[in-house]
C-alpha cells in the first residue's frame, strides 16, 4: 500500500501532555533558535499593535490638533518602526523556518538511524508505506507544529493581549465589549477549522481512490476492452467523482463561509463600538483617533483568532503524528549484540543447527526442532514447497532472526556470542528478487566492498559474466540502474547482485534462486557465476534449477519446518519419496519452459542432460 494511504489514517488522540512535552524537548538542541524567534515574534506583535496606536496619535495629536510638527515626528517614528519591523519579520521567518528545517532534519535522521538498527522482525510486521509516511509527512507535521504552530499561537496570543491592552488604555468600557465577544469568535473559528480539516481529509482519501481507479483501469485496459465493460466502469467512476465533488464542494463552501462568519462577528463588535462610542463621544469620553484605533484593532483581531483556531485544530493531528514517530523511535530491535560478544575474525568452519525451533508469531511454529550439521565448504540445496521454512532457515543463519529454542553453532561457537556485524559482514547473499539501489552499476557492485578499486569492481563483474552486458551500455559501469534497478532486466539484476556478493568475498554464501525464467544465455551466466561463488565456501542455495540441485553436495527437502529427506541427488531419487516427486514435476516444467523458446532449441538441449 502506498505511503499516502497511511498518511490519511484516522488518528484522533486526546491531547496528551507527555507527548507534548516530548515534542518540546525536540527543540532542546536548537534552544537558541527557539528563544530567538519567540522573542522576535513577541516584539513583532507588540509593534503591530503599536502601529495602530500611532495611527490614533496621528489623528488625535496631528490632524485634529492641526499640529504639523507633531504629525511629522509621529510619522518619522512610524517610519523607523517600519524598518525595525522589517528586520524583525525577516528574523522571525528565518529563525522559525530554520528551526523547522532543523527539526525535520533531526527527526528524519533519528528515525532512519533507528530503522537501521531494527531487526527484520519489525519489518515483517510493519508495512513499508507506514514507515514512509512516518518519516515524510509525520515529521513535517510535527516540525510544523513546533515552528509555525508555536509561532502563530504566540503571535496570536501576544497580539490579542497587546491589542486588548491598548484598547483598555484608550477606553476600558469599549474594551470590555470586545472582550465579551472575543470567546465566541474563538470558539466559532475553532469549530469551523475542525470541520474544514475533516472535509479536506475526505477529499484526499477520495482522491487516492480516484487515482487507484485510473491505475487499475489503465493497467487492465485489455480486459476492459475484451469484456466490453466500458459503460459500467464509467458509472462506477462517476460515483467516485460525485463523492469527490461533494467533499470538495463542502470543503470549499465551509472555507468560504468561515471568513465571512468571523468578519460578521467582528462587525457586530464594530457596530456596538460605533453605537456606544458615538454616545460616549457626545460626552467627550473618546476621540476620533480612539474610534479609529478600535475599528482597526477589531478588524485586525480576526487574523490572530483565525491563526489560533488553525493551530488548535491541527494540534491534535500533529500530536498523533508525534506519537507514531515516537513509537517508531522507541521500537526495540529484537536481535542485538549480547554483552561480551566478540568478533571471531572468521566464521568459516562447520555450521551446526542444534534442536532449533522458531516461530514468527508466537503461536505458529515455522521451524520445528531442526538438527543439521554442515561441514565447511559444503553446498547445501534447500528444496520443498513454498512456506515450508526454507527462507526461515536462511534468515536464521544470517541471524536476521535468532532461534526461539536451540542453538546455532558456527565453528563450535554459539553465534549469539559473536557480534552481528562479524557474522553478517562475512555472509554473501543473493536474493530471489535482486534488490539494487538507485545509482550506477559500479556503485551497486561496490556495495559489496566499499573500498574496492574500480579494477576490482570490474573483475568481479567479469568473473560472474556480467561484464558483457554492462560494457554494451553507452556509459558502461557508470550507467544508471534506475529506481530499485528497474532499468535492468531481472537476469541482469541478478548478475549484478552476484558480482556484488563476489566482491564482498564472503565466507558463507547464500542464494535464493529466481523462479521466473530468464533468457537462456543469462541463465547460463548466472549458473556459472554461482559456481564461482560457491567454490571453497559453505553455500546454502534455495534451489529451483535442476542443475543447481544436482550439483549440491547435499539436498535438504524441507516441509512444515522440518527436514523430511536429506541426501545426495542419486540417494534421494532412489528413495522414491517426496524428492522424487518434486524432481520429476520440476523436470517437466523446466524442460517445457525451455522448449517454449524453441527458436533456441538446440542450445537449451544441453542442460537437459544429467
Amino acid at each position, binding site marked *: 500500500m502506498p505511503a499516502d494511504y497511511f498518511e490519511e489514517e484516522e488518528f484522533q488522540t486526546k491531547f496528551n501532555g507527555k507527548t507534548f512535552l516530548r515534542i518540546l524537548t525536540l527543540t532542546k538542541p536548537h534552544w537558541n533558535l527557539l528563544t530567538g524567534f519567540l522573542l522576535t515574534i513577541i516584539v513583532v506583535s507588540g509593534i503591530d499593535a503599536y502601529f495602530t496606536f500611532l*495611527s490614533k496619535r*496621528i489623528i488625535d495629536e*496631528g490632524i*485634529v490638533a492641526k499640529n504639523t510638527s507633531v*504629525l*511629522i515626528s509621529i510619522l518619522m517614528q512610524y*517610519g523607523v518602526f517600519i524598518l525595525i*519591523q522589517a528586520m524583525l*519579520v*525577516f528574523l522571525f*521567518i*528565518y529563525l522559525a*523556518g530554520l528551526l523547522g528545517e532543523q527539526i525535520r*532534519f533531526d527527526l528524519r*535522521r533519528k528515525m*532512519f*538511524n533507528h*530503522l537501521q538498527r531494527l531487526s*527484520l522482525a519489525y519489518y515483517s510486521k510493519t508495512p513499508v508505506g507506514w*514507515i*514512509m509516511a512516518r518519516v515524510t509527512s509525520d515529521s513535517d507535521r510535527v516540525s510544523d507544529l513546533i515552528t509555525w504552530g508555536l509561532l502563530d499561537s504566540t503571535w496570536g496570543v501576544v497580539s490579542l493581549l497587546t491589542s486588548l491592552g491598548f484598547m483598555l488604555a484608550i477606553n476600558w468600557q469599549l474594551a470590555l465589549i470586545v472582550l465579551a465577544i472575543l470567546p465566541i469568535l474563538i470558539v466559532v473559528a475553532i469549530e469551523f477549522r475542525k470541520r474544514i480539516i475533516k472535509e479536506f481529509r475526505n477529499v484526499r482519501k477520495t482522491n487516492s481512490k480516484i487515482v*487507484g481507479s485510473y491505475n*487499475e*483501469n*489503465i493497467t487492465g485496459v485489455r*480486459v*476492459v476492452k*475484451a*469484456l466490453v*465493460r466500458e459503460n459500467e466502469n*464509467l458509472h462506477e*467512476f462517476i460515483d467516485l*467523482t460525485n463523492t469527490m*465533488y461533494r467533499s*470538495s464542494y463542502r470543503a*470549499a463552501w465551509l472555507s468560504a*463561509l468561515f471568513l465571512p*462568519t468571523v468578519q460578521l462577528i467582528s*462587525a457586530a463588535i*464594530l*457596530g456596538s463600538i*460605533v*453605537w456606544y462610542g*458615538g*454616545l460616549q463621544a457626545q460626552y467627550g469620553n473618546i476621540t*476620533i483617533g480612539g474610534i*479609529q484605533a478600535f475599528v482597526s484593532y477589531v478588524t485586525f483581531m480576526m487574523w490572530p483568532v483565525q491563526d489560533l483556531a488553525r493551530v488548535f485544530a491541527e494540534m491534535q493531528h500533529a500530536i498523533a503524528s508525534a506519537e507514531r514517530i515516537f513509537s517508531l523511535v522507541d521500537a526495540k530491535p529484537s536481535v542485538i549484540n549480547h554483552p561480551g560478544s566478540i568478533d571471531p575474525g572468521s566464521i568459516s568452519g562447520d555450521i551446526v543447527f542444534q534442536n532449533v525451533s522458531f516461530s514468527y508469531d508466537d503461536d505458529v511454529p515455522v521451524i520445528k526442532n531442526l538438527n543439521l550439521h554442515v561441514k565447511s565448504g559444503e553446498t547445501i540445496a534447500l528444496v520443498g514447497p513454498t512456506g515450508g521454512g526454507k527462507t526461515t532457515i536462511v534468515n536464521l543463519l544470517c541471524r536476521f532472526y535468532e532461534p526461539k529454542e536451540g542453538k546455532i553453532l558456527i565453528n563450535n561457537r554459539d553465534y549469539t556470542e559473536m557480534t552481528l556485524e562479524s557474522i*553478517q*559482514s562475512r555472509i554473501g*547473499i543473493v536474493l530471489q528478487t535482486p*534488490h539494487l*539501489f538507485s545509482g550506477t552499476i559500479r556503485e551497486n557492485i561496490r*556495495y559489496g566492498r566499499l573500498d574496492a578499486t574500480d579494477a576490482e569492481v570490474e573483475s568481479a563483474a567479469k568473473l560472474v559474466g556480467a561484464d558483457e552486458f554492462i560494457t554494451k551500455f553507452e556509459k558502461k559501469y557508470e550507467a544508471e540502474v534506475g529506481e*530499485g534497478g528497474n532499468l535492468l532486466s531481472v537476469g541482469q539484476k541478478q548478475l549484478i547482485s552476484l558480482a*556484488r556478493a563476489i566482491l*564482498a568475498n564472503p565466507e558463507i554464501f547464500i542464494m535464493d534462486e529466481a523462479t521466473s525464467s530468464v533468457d537462456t544465455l543469462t541463465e547460463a551466466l548466472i549458473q556459472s557465476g554461482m559456481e564461482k561463488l560457491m567454490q571453497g565456501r559453505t553455500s546454502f542455495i534455495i534451489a529451483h534449477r535442476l542443475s543447481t540441485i544436482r550439483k549440491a553436495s547435499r539436498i535438504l527437502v524441507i516441509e512444515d519446518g522440518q527436514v523430511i529427506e536429506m541426501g545426495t541427488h542419486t540417494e534421494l531419487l532412489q528413495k522414491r519419496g517426496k524428492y*522424487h516427486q518434486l524432481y*520429476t514435476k520440476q523436470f517437466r*516444467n523446466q524442460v517445457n519452459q525451455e522448449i517454449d523458446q524453441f527458436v533456441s532449441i538446440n542450445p537449451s538441449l544441453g542442460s*537437459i542432460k544429467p
Partner: protein
Amino acid sequence: MNFNSAASTFDLKVLVPQKKAVGLWLMMSGYRLRYLGATLSLGGSALAKTSTYLLLRYFVDNYFGQGSPTIGLPIIALGFILLALVEGGLSFTSGRLAAQTAEGITRRLRNYLFDHIQYLPFTYHDHTQTGELIQRCSSDVDALRRFYADQAIGIGRITLLFIINFIAIIQINLELALLSVIIVPILVITSLFFFKKVSIAYEKNQEQEAVLSTTLQENLTGVRVVKAFARQNYEIDKFDRENREKYRRGRRLLMMHSLFWPITDTLCGFQMLGGFLLGAMMAINGTITIGSYLAYAGLIVWIIFPMRNLGRLIVQTSTGMVSYGRVIDIIRQNRENLDEGDYLPEGNLKGLVEFKDVCFEYQSGISAIEHITFTAYPGDVVALLGSTGSGKTTLVNLLPRFYEYTDGSIHLDGVELNRYPRRYLRKQIGIVEQEPFLFSRSIKENIIYGVERDISQEQIETAARAAAIHDVIMSFPNGYHTLVGEKGVTLSGGQKQRVAIARTLLKNPRILIFDDSTSSVDMETEAEIRQALENLMQNRTTFIIAHRIQSIMEANLILVLDKGKIVQRGTHEQLLNEDGIYRQIYEIQTRIEDELEKELTGAC
C-alpha cells in the same frame, strides 16, 4: 446540482484545435454563468467593504466633526452590521459559485478522461506509460482545478479590489489617489520576479524530497541486503547526505521567503506612510475631512497589500497552462468506435473464420504478421504454435478488432470482419490470457465482471466448479468475497487463469481465444484444468496459443508460426509425418519423459 444537464454531455474534443486561452474558456462551457456570478459577487463584496469605510467617514465627520448627524447612531451601527452581512454573504456566494464551477469542471474532466482512455485503441496503450498517464489524470487535472478555483478568481479579486477602492479614493481626492499607487507597479514586478524564483526553488526542494523518499524506500525494501552486507553505516551516511541536501534546499527556499515578506512590507509601509503624510496634511489644510482621512487610511490597505499576491497567482497560472497542454494531448487521441460497422447480426455468430492473405503492421514498414491464410469451421480448434514474437498473439488480437489488419481480408460467417461493430465482436469472443489481469475487488465480482445479465450465486459457483477453481475459492476465509490482492491471499498465475475461465464460461462467447499456460500446477489440478478447458471449448470455435504439444494434439488445425508467417500447417498426425519444427519439438518433448525415466532408473 444539475450535473446531469447539458454540462455532462459536453464533448471536450472541441477544445483540441483551439488556442490555450480559448480552450480554457471553452472548458467552462455550462458553468460560465456561475463563474460570472462568482465574479460579480466578488465585486459586490468588495464594494460593500469599501462602503464600510465610507460609512465610517460619514460617522466620524458627523459625530465628531462639524457636520450635524441626520442619521441616528443605531442606524449607523446597524449599517455596519448590514454591510458586513452583504460583504460576507456575497463573498460566501462567490466562493460557493467558484467552487461549483471549478469542481464541476474538474469532475467533468475526470469522467471524460477516464472514459476517453478506456476507448483509446491498443495502439495508443502499447506506447504509453501507465505512470505518465495517471500523472496527467491526477496532478495535471488538479492543476487545472486550481486554475479555476484559485488563480483565475484570485486575479479577478485583486483586480476588482484595486479598481473599486481606487475609484473610492479618487472620490476622496484625485491627487491623493494617484500618489497612493506609485508603488503598485514595483510591487507587482517584485512579486512576479520573486515567485518565479520561488517556484524554481520549490521544484528543487520537491525533487530532493522525492530523492529522499526513494532513498528511504530502497533502504526499507532492501533491508535484507543492507543487513546481509552489514551496510547500516553506509546507508546512514547516504541518507544523511540526501537529508542534508534537503535541509540546504529548504533553507534556500526559506531565505527567499524571509527576504520577500519584509522587503515588500517595507515597500508597502513607506507607500502608506507617504499617503498618511499627504492625507494628514490635506486633512489639516481642510482639503479633505477627517472622516475622509480615516476612510482613506482603511482603503489604502486593500489596494496595496493584495498586490503582493498577484505575482504568485500569475506564476501559478503558467503551470496551469502547461497542465492544460498535457491533458489536451490525451484528449487529442482518437477513440475507437465500438459501434462503427454496418453489419449487425440478430443472433450469435456461428464461428466460421476465414483468413485470406492477412497482413498487419504495428508501425508501417515493420510487419508483425504476413500473408496469413487459413479457415476455421464452426466448432473447430485451431492451435497456434510459435516462439515469443512469432505473431501468435497478434493474429488473435485481430479478431476482436483490437487492431485493424492492414492488408488482406478476414471473413467471419462470410462477412468482412471490419463490417461488424467492435462491441458485437467483443461480446461474441472470449479471451483467456496466460496470466489474466484481475481487478482489486472480490473474486465474485471478478467472475461476473463484464457479464451484463443478473447472475445468481448458484450460476457463479457452477461456473467456478467447471473452471476447477471453486474449491480453491472456498479455502479462503472469505470465500467468494475474498478481495483479490488482499493481505495473505495471493492467487497464483494458474488460479488467476481459472478465475478467468469461470468468467468466460459465464460470458458464453461463440469464439474463444485461449492462451495455454505453462505455469506449474500439480498433475491433479492439471487434469482439472483440462476438463475445465474442454467444458469451455464445447461448441465454440477455439484458438489456442499453445506452449506444449499435449494440449494441441486434438486440434483440427495446427498452425506453426515463425516471424509472422505460417511455416507449417495441418493436424498433429500430418505434421508428425513432415520434416520441420513441429516434429523437432514433438521429439524433444517425448524425449523429456525418456530422459527422465533414464535418469530415474540410472539412479536406482
